[in-house]
């Protein structure tokens, strides 16, 4: 006797605990095995690019905060670099160091969130997430000292940063940089060697090297596939050419590699922060620019290595006070290009972990 079976379509999301926002996946399941995937975007689409066309160059900084709200500083940095490139100016030295420190702290914070939710998706009942929230809170305190906000910082401006670091910032940062490696060790002790985690993630969601490059993946997802491509090394901006750090690279590009790459990147970010603290010069923190910027006609594309990947802003200026076009190269969005290739053939539980290990953010995917 043969059993009559029938594939079913399940909508994962837009409201689902593990889709990291309002992401929807239409999945064709045969039993528990995924046969086909169709991602559906747009539930958080706010038209940032259109809004940017109606705002002045300084005002757009506030929009960039809201792209990847877990990594607002990196977004600010990328946008400001882009405007600076468009105008042909450079930020003062001190501002560059401040920005580098902020971007690296932001990377740690974003990776903490990414790892925490990845482990939460694996079913480690919120414990690693809670620990990671605790450390993220400290980073947010640092950001609050400098910028006055905890999520949407609006800290950077074209040509520098909004305000110099307050006096209490450096001691607090030093304390954080001393404490944090211990906490990272603790995360590693907690789960890195856990047999269940390893069986769940090893060999799951493998992204071969060539496919990852072809699919324009970037950030930890690309590096986990064994491509040592990091814009901080490949195309150094700010002060990355003056600091020493290593580039963690995965071996085969599975979930476990993505997990380890993020863990290791946090250590390297701390290294960068420490070196920046030593090298930090005195001086102005902001170039002398008017509040209303009028860049010359032309276009510019500047990118940074954000926590999620290559974050770029392509600005076209027509000489007025607002950009003619502001296109955003959103890493989270483009990292989803290969979702189907990664998911087909795996089970529903693996689907959750693969999606979690990509660490995307819907604010950035839908923009």
């Amino acid at each position, binding site marked *: 006797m043969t059993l009559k079976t029938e594939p*079913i379509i*399940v909508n994962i999301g837009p409201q*689902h*605990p*593990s889709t990291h926002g309002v992401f929807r996946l239409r999945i064709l399941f045969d039993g*528990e095995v995924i046969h086909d995937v169709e991602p559906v975007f747009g539930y958080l689409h706010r038209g940032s690019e259109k809004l940017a066309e109606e705002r002045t160059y300084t005002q757009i900084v506030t929009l960039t905060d809201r792209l990847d709200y877990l990594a607002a500083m990196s977004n600010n940095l990328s946008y400001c670099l882009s405007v600076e490139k468009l105008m042909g100016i450079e930020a003062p030295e001190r501002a560059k160091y401040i920005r580098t420190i902020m971007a690296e702290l932001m990377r740690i914070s974003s990776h903490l969130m990414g790892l925490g939710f990845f*482990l*939460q*998706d*694996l*079913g*480690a*009942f*919120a*414990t690693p997430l*809670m*620990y990671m929230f*605790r450390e993220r809170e400290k980073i947010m305190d640092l950001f609050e000292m400098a910028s006055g906000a905890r999520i949407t910082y609006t800290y950077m401006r074209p040509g520098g940063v909004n305000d110099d670091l307050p006096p209490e910032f450096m001691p607090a940062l030093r304390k954080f940089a001393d404490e944090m490696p211990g906490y990272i060790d603790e995360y590693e002790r*907690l*789960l*890195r*060697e*856990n*047999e*269940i*985690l*390893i*069986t*769940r993630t*090893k060999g799951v969601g493998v992204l071969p*090297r060539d496919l990852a490059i072809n699919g324009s993946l970037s950030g930890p997802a690309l590096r986990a596939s*064994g*491509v*040592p*491509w*990091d814009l901080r*090394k*490949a*195309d*150094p901006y700010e002060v990355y050419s003056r600091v020493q750090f*290593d*580039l*963690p*690279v*995965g*071996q*085969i590009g599975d979930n*476990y*590699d993505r997990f*380890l*790459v993020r*863990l*290791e990147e946090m250590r390297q970010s701390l290294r960068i922060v420490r070196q920046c603290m030593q090298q930090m010069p005195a001086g102005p923190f902001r170039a002398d620019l008017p509040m209303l910027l009028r860049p010359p006609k032309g276009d510019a594309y500047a990118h940074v290595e954000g926590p999620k990947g290559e974050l770029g802003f392509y600005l076209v200026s027509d000489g007025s006070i607002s950009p003619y076009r502001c296109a955003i190269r959103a890493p989270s969005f483009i990292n989803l290009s290969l979702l189907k290739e990664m998911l087909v053939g795996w*089970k*529903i*539980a*693996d689907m*959750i972990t693969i999606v979690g290990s990509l660490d995307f953010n819907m604010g950035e995917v839908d923009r």
Partner: protein
Amino acid sequence: MAVSALATGCQPPGFFDGQNLWHEWVVNFFPRIGDSICRGMGGHADGGPPNWLIYLVLGFLGSLIVVNIAALGVPFVVLLERKLLGRFQNRIGPNRVGPFGLLQPVADALKLMTKEDITPAAADKIVFALAPLAFAIPIILMFAPIPWADHASLANLDIGILWVIAVTTAAEAGIFMAGWSSNNKYSLFGAMRAVALLVSYEIPLVLSLLGVVLLAGTLNLSEIVLDQRFAPNILWQPLGFFVFIIAVSAELNRAPFDQLEAESELVSGFHTEYSGMKWAMVQLGEYAALIGFSAIIATLFLSGWKGPLWIPGYIWLVTKMAFILCAFIWVRATIPRMRIDQIMAFGWKFLLPLSIINIFATAAEVIAFPDALPYWLIPINIAFAGACVVGMAKLLGFQPKTRKIVIPGRPVIGDDTPGRIVPLMRGGN
């Protein structure tokens, strides 16, 4: 079933002649209650009420007590879990309602009672409504044969273990009914996983118990406790305990085997669509099963209500249960969830052979030492269990290795003079 309900406590009157010590009364609380009621109603004397009435009243009272242990214990276990999870996660846990959050269960219960009871439009209404009952009632039945103290079980069944296994297995039908009738695909996945888990974990569960049964020579829980005179069974049966506790956590849908509710995958699986009191029933069943099984574990492996001091047996039992509950919560706070096929493989390939090995080893020991096992067998047993687990893991390749992350030395792209061609590291090291 023979309703010996607490009537085992109806001793001959001479039993407590002259010994009216307070602590005697406390120690024998359950038997005394039965006894007093029995005597208060006229006992077995002529002219008193007929025996069947006494049995009925006693049975009713006894089951009232036991159902209340389950129903009132559950909220406090939930509170214990939330508090402990909080502490494991470096936070406080519920502490807003009452002192130390002790009234949180009351608040939760009130909230659940006042919540709207939603039945999905496309659900099978009758089955949907019956499923929580079909889930919770068998689990409460499971409390019947548990001996809370000497001669104090609601039903002193000769097939106590079988009864426990049978009724908890029946509860899975409730899970399946809930998942199927919700007409929700997540619930369906949960229900299917529940059945798969049931099939693969019930067998090691039962087989690992056989070792204890072989040692005691009986299925009666009270007698199994009495049999653990010299040392708790965990010392004689480390392998059986290992298999049993894993199988029980699968049976209880506790982490890391909570696939059927897997909130990050299936949005709480089979009870996704439940709300209000129906949801409360499902929770009641789950946590009652947790309490019940920790009592069973304590009874079978940790010598139940027996303790070295004069402390009453039921307090000993509850202490042991609390210890086991804390261990379950601790594991839940730490360990990620396994995948369903990995669980299946683990159950069939790892636990089942181990439990069979355990049966044969125990049988050999019992044949060799028919009266009582000598103490020098304890370290041998523990070593044997460890060797079996490690050997089995090695045999099956269940030894996942961690992996080092590669930090390429020099040749990182771009980390050199501009424009030079940098050789790539092919796929890392």
